[in-house]
């Protein structure tokens, strides 16, 4: 066998699973695809986000909470293992409200979520509260307030991915780039993973190939269903720190750039559009009018990986046990849980007992 575990996909989901398993002492190999593949791991917004997630899916909400709580330690360990900087902060996060209707809707959501939580998860902040918490910014006249969740945070997603790759290597694993996989074949024990770059074998295989997952997994008696939307993001020149709290759709990075995003569009076009930039810039400048003088430096798009009900899918093949699939939308938020909980649950046979809410079986009732 070439490895104990082969993970197909070196995006933030595959790499986090592999990092956790390498830390547990398994010999892991991570195979990544072609240079031009879609990579949500490189295109995402970088929020480690709890508020509003899984409002109607308690298991997903629980896992998100767990992950957010694991994140600080996970990040320290990752940065130390990989010997690289990972800019992460968890001061809590905002969802800005423009106008009274947005504020009331948000307050209703907060109340619904809080009513089922042990301790209230979301606070509604008035405009005055906001002004006190963010003294360096002046808010537009339409800003009525924000919801706030103390568990929320943000990370530099590119540093995260880089650190995961280096962390895997530092623990004796390896990441093979430009190693696209065309199919997985069950052997008497273990699996053969085939592709133009050659065949590798392992005792276990986890398919975490983002949008490419169904093609590889569903021929092995799994039912991984996903759809996608395009999300466009804007990033500005570097500015003096003035936004101490990340918000959904608006955050200042450790470098000082401001990220604005992301749109939700039904298209397969890989490009970006001025129309979307206008939509994003309009909302951002309504929240903080002074952003109008700030220069946009880059705009890009990425494609979300969306299970039909929004919750992650962690599946095991019924015909070939030992072959798994993992897909989810919020791979950055869930990275800590993937490393500490999901990977071990797969390999130790606890997927059905601990994470059955996320099985692929849930789609055919």
């Amino acid at each position, binding site marked *: 066998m070439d490895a104990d575990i082969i993970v197909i996909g070196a995006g933030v989901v595959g790499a986090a699973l592999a990092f956790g398993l390498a830390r547990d002492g398994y010999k892991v190999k991570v195979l990544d695809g072609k240079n031009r593949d879609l990579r949500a791991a490189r295109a995402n917004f970088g929020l480690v986000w709890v508020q509003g997630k899984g409002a109607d899916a308690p298991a997903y909400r629980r896992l998100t909470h767990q992950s957010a709580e694991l994140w600080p330690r996970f990040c320290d360990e990752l940065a130390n293992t990989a010997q690289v900087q990972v800019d992460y902060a968890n001061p809590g996060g905002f969802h800005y409200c423009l106008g009274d209707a947005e504020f009331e809707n948000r307050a209703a959501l907060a109340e619904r979520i809080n009513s089922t939580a042990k301790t209230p998860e979301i606070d509604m902040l008035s405009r005055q509260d906001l002004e006190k918490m963010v003294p*360096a*910014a*002046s808010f537009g006249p339409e800003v009525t307030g924000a919801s706030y969740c103390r568990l929320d945070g943000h990370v530099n997603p590119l540093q995260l991915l880089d650190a995961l790759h280096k962390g895997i290597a530092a623990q004796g694993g390896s990441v093979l780039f430009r190693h696209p996989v065309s199919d997985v074949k069950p052997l008497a024990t273990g699996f053969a993973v085939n592709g133009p770059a050659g065949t590798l074998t392992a005792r276990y295989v986890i398919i975490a190939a983002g949008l490419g997952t169904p093609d590889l997994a569903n021929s092995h008696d799994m039912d991984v269903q996903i759809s996608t939307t395009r999300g466009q993001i804007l990033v500005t*020149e*570097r*500015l*003096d*720190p*003035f936004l101490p709290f990340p918000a959904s759709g608006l955050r200042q990075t450790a470098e*000082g750039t401001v990220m604005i995003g992301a749109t939700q569009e039904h298209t397969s076009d890989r490009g970006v559009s001025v129309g979307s930039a206008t939509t994003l810039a309009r909302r951002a400048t309504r929240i*903080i009018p*002074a*952003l109008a*003088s*700030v*220069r946009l430096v880059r705009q890009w798009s990425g494609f979300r990986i969306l299970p039909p009900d929004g919750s992650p899918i962690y599946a095991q093949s019924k015909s070939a046990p030992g072959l798994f699939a993992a897909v989810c939308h919020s791979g950055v938020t869930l990275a800590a849980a993937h490393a500490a909980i999901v990977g071990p649950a797969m390999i130790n046979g606890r997927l059905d007992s601990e994470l059955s809410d996320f099985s692929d079986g849930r789609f055919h009732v």
Partner: protein
Amino acid sequence: MFRSVMAGLKEQADMTVYVNGVETPAWDGETVASILLRVPNVGRQTPVSGETRLPYCQMGVCFECLAVVDGVPSVQGCLMPLKDGMRIERQRGRREVGQ
């Protein structure tokens, strides 16, 4: 570092601009970038390490000529002709977002 040949040929400057508040004579055809090369200590400071830079390419492709021009930050100086009375300020590192 640079001087205008006009300075020796014309009796009077074509215009006056204000560089970090200091009255500075200037010549027709000059850009904000050329002023940055004539007056000490106005080159941009990078938003990364804060080191000082001066215009490098003069053709719009290096962004080393950024300056605050009449209150507008991050202006590409080499593409901005000087005008009489123009105010040019040093672009210091990561700039502040106006209140």
